[in-house]
Each structure stands twice: as C-alpha cells, then as structure tokens.
C-alpha cells in the first residue's frame, strides 16, 4: 500500500512537468506583443519593455525560460502577474471559493443523484423510474450555460428565492444556486449510474444468498445490495470532485463566483501568461492527488482490488 502510493506520487512528476511545459509553451507562443496596450493609449516605453522582457525571461529560448520558471515553482514561487500581483496570493484567495462551490455541488450529487437513482433502481418501470429517466435525459441534453442562465433568471431574479450572483460574498447560501447548476450534469449521470448498478446487483447471486439466509428485506437491500451497487457511484463522484476542483469557468462566469475558473478566464482574456500557467499547474496537481485518493478509496470499498 505504502509502496503503491509512493509509486503513484513518483509517476506524478513527469505528468506535472509535461503538462506545465505544454501550458507554458502554449501561453507564450500566442502571437502578438504581450505588452501591447498595457500603457494606456501610448506604446509602452522602451525601458518598461526591457525590464519586463528581462523579468519574464522573454529573450531566453523557451526551454531555458521554462526551466527557470520550473525552478521558481519548486521553491514555491509562482511569480507575479504583469500588474505586479503575486500569483500565489491570487490563487490562495480564489481557491477556497472553488473548493466550497465543488463541495456544494458534490452534496447535491450525493443527495439528489444517489437518492433518485435508488428510488428508480428499486422500482424499475414505475412512474418514479420513468420520471428520473426522462428528467436526467433532459438535463444531460441541455448545455450548462442554458440551465445556469434560466435558473438564474427565474430562481434568482424573477422569484428571488436565491441570490442571483455571488460576488465577493461566497457564503454557502450564496453558492446554493451555482452549486446546483454545477452539479446538474453529473447529478444526472450519478442518478442513472446508481439506478443501473442497483438493478444489476439486485439480480446477483449473493443477493439471492442473502434472501436464502432469511435476512429481512431492508437488510438484503440496505446492506448487501447497496454496498456493492455504490462502488462505481462513489468512484464516479470522487473523480468528478477532482474535476470540479479545477474550477468551473462557465458556471463561475454566469454567477460571478470569485473562484479559480473566473480567475483563469480573466487571465486568459487579458493574456496574463504567468497567472494562467500558475493556476493550471495547481489544478493539475490537485486533480492528480484527488485521483490517487479515489483509487485508494476504490481499493478500500472493493476488497477484490489490490494495490500491489
């Protein structure tokens, strides 16, 4: 187990180097002058351009510049934006909001997704089963920005049930609506996955054994069937949590959530390369770590999986 974790952590090193290099190269390979339009209506003074060029190693060949950047990263220095803001501090400010938003979304996935999936899976072909199938199909078919905008319009503005935008106050209450929108797609998948998995396991031989043991129905389903049925669901939700921690550009944009997605979007449009590379590096690391965690949980849930 310890060796497995160590091996997985070592495997992350080339992945992180590879992804950050690609991001770094792509960001700086964008055509155009990075300092165009930075000094108001006038062209920037030569002294400023020279200083910035030196600060960001823009005269060095790409590999050298990247290695210098990587060296700073390893020392924990994410660098500064062109405006002189610390990238590390900006990320620290935005990240808690994204984590909160992801947690709200995961709670929705667990409560509504698994709940609906269980109801549908236990009564296949019933009214509730068809309701779940149709409604999840609808959700899966509509793009997130449409769901987000429509809910914002009705629940947020017309009826005023939830705050329409988040702004600087990222309290859990403010995050309910964006969290639900962010969860919508995965929630539909979770419901369907739970339903299928449950229906499949109900016919399994070991469930028949549990009935033959004379166990009460609620124990047969609640313990024997459920424990097995939820293995793929929990794995899916775990992986989805990793993806949600990468920030949600569309949802955070619609509801003006000051999270990582918003930060990256702003940095890309203002061509702030240092910010983009820094943020993406953190996201890659988080995603890899969450995935490792999910694999460990999977092995714990299903004893047949061994991490040798």
């Amino acid at each position: 187990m310890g060796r497995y974790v160590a091996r997985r952590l070592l495997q992350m090193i080339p992945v992180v180097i590879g992804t950050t290099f690609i991001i770094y190269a792509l960001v700086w390979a964008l055509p155009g002058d990075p300092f165009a339009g930075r000094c108001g209506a006038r062209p920037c003074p030569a002294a400023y351009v020279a200083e910035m060029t030196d600060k960001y190693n823009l005269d060095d060949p790409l590999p050298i510049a990247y290695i210098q950047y990587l060296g700073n990263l390893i020392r924990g220095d994410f660098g500064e934006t062109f405006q002189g803001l610390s990238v590390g501090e900006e990320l620290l400010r935005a990240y808690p909001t994204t984590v909160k938003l992801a947690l709200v979304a995961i709670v929705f996935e667990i409560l509504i997704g698994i709940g609906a999936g269980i109801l549908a899976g236990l009564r296949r072909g019933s009214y509730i089963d068809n309701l779940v199938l149709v409604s999840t199909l609808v959700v899966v078919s509509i793009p997130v920005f449409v769901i987000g905008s429509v809910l914002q319009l009705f629940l947020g503005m017309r009826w005023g049930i939830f705050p329409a935008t988040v702004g600087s106050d990222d309290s859990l209450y403010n995050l309910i609506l964006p969290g639900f929108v962010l969860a919508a797609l995965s929630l539909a998948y979770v419901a369907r996955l739970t339903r299928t998995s449950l229906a499949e396991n109900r016919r399994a031989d070991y469930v028949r054994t549990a009935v033959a043991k004379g166990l009460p129905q609620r124990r047969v389903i609640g313990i024997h069937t459920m424990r097995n049925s939820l293995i793929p669901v929990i794995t899916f939700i775990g992986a989805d949590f990793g993806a949600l921690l990468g920030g949600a550009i569309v949802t955070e944009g619609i509801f003006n959530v000051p999270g990582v997605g918003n930060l990256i979007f702003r940095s890309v449009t203002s061509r702030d390369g240092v910010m983009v590379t820094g943020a993406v590096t953190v996201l890659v690391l988080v995603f890899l770590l969450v995935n490792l965690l999910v694999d460990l949980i999977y092995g714990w849930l299903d004893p047949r999986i061994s991490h040798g």
Partner: protein
Amino acid sequence: MATTQAGIAPRPDQAGVTPLLEVENLQVEFRTRDGVAKAVNGVSYTLHEGETLAVLGESGSGKSVTAQAIMGILDSPPGFVTGGAVRFRGQDLLALPDDERRAYRGRSISMIFQDALSALNPVFPVGWQIAEMFRVHEGLSKKDAKQRAVELMEQVRIPAARERAGDYPHQFSGGMRQRIMIAMAIALDPDVLIADEPTTALDVTVQAQIMQLLADLQRERNMGLILITHDLGVVADVADKIEVMYSGRIMEQAPVHDIYAAPAHPYTKGLLESIPRVDLKGQELSAIKGLPPNLTNIPAGCEFRPRCPYARDICKEQRPPLAEVVPGRFSACHFAQEVLEGDIEPAQQ
C-alpha cells in the same frame, strides 16, 4: 430412518408420520417475452429426517427451480409459483405471508449453491457473512457471533479458521469457499439442507471432500438433504432415493440402488448408459439423442417421446402419469414394466 417412501407425496395420515418436507404437485412458470415457460409441472416428493434425496436431471429440467420455489427465492418476476404446496412439518410455506415465511429460511431450510464465489458477497469478510446468521436470527453480539462463526469454520474443516475469518471470498480456493457456504447454511442447525449442484464447479478431488463433508454433517445433525445434481456418479454413494426430472416433471422415483441396477424409465436408462465406463473403453460413448423440449411449448403426449428409442404411437397421444411399477418404484412411462425388465425393442425408425 425411512429410506424408501411409498407413494407420491403421501398424506400424513397415509404415511403415519408427518414428513419433514413435502412438495405436492408444485407448478412454476416463467413469464417471459417469448411466452410462458412451464419450468415445473406438478412435482411431488417427500423428505424425511436424516434422508438424502437426489434430484437428477439435465440443465433446464426444473430441478433448481423446484428448490428455489421451496426456499422462496425465485426471481419474481419472471418466476411464479402457480400451484401446489410446500409443506414443512405439515405447514404449507406457500400459504404464509412473506415475513412469516422468512423465519423458515436459513433456520428450518437452508441452501447452498453451485458457484460459491458469486453466491458469497464479495465485499464482506467470510466470518462476517457467517456471523450475520447469528446476529440477525439470534440477536447475538458482534463478538459472540464472530466466535460462533469461527467455530463453524472449524467444523467444516477450514484450516486456521480464526485467522482466515477476516479474509474475503476471493482469497479462498473453490473448495474452501464452498465450505464457507456450507458453514453459513448449517449455522442455525436447519432441518433441511438443499444443495444445488454443490460440487459442479470444483475439481474432482475437492468434489469428493465436499460430498464427504456434507454426508458427515448430515449424519451428525440428522438433517434431511436434498442433493440437486446432473452427475450420476455423485449421488450413488450418498443418496437414499432418487428423483429423475425431465421437462419439469418427475420421470422416475426409486431407491438409489434399485435405479442403478435396473432403470424403469427410458430416460434414466439413457442417462446411465451415457456414463463413461472403464470396461467399455475404446467404444463410442452412448448419448441421448436430441435436446430437451422447449418449455414454452412442451409437446403433447410424453415429454420424452421425441428422444425415446422405444416410443410407440400411444406416447404421442397420452402423457404417462407417474405410477408405481413395483412397490417403492415409480415411473412415468407407458412401458415402465417392459423397460424395467429389459423386455422391449427399440421402435422401428
């Protein structure tokens, strides 16, 4: 100990003692998209304490479905019991509401299955799964139940039982897994144990050990044992009497030694002749030609007629009832007497 029980499903007043288990005219059908498959069509048999009844038949003969109907674990839908009775010590289980019936499962009648790997829950330790019987049925504490589970594992001769109780099913060999199934099934000291092809998935050497274990446990506990199998070799040593099933019906019923000496039904005769024998080495194996009938469309007349070498005209028209040929022996064949005495020629083809 009754070894041969006269009559089909004798009523208590006729037999003198109430049998342990009495299946009477059981009917089961599966309602599928392709039609209604009549899987069990009027099966009757009785089982007494300490008796071993072998139910023999090909795949699809209804032998497992009968057992599932007795246990009340049919997949329903599509499976439905449409008639008959299953009496345990005189109490018709089919007439009981679900929760009362549940009390019989595991405690009075329990069952082991062919594939122990899929029949055991993959995500719980085996000791936990055995202990669950005591925790749910007898309300024992976790610790006491675990202790009882370990004792049971020792009784079914699992080495290092205490250490292995925490292991999961996939960590055991096939034979050990079947022992765990057996330990679970006998945990509450049931009166009837149904073993549905318990050795089919195992190596030959392990098969013998499991059969020996079952025979020992049955003798110690005086259980009634229903042994479902398609393997004639397995039953010869342990069974008291045999029911031969075909197309959801009993074709022949007899004490085990009589049936081996001289079958009274062409189907049984075909089964016996298809066993490979050392003294016939080099000769072609004899097989029963053709396939069992489609259960959604069982032909009129005798179900076995299309495959029967002795079929006559009457077999096309009348379905032969299960009738006594000689005392203690029953056969569902118009020519049972002739088959028994070897006094019949194959029909002209």
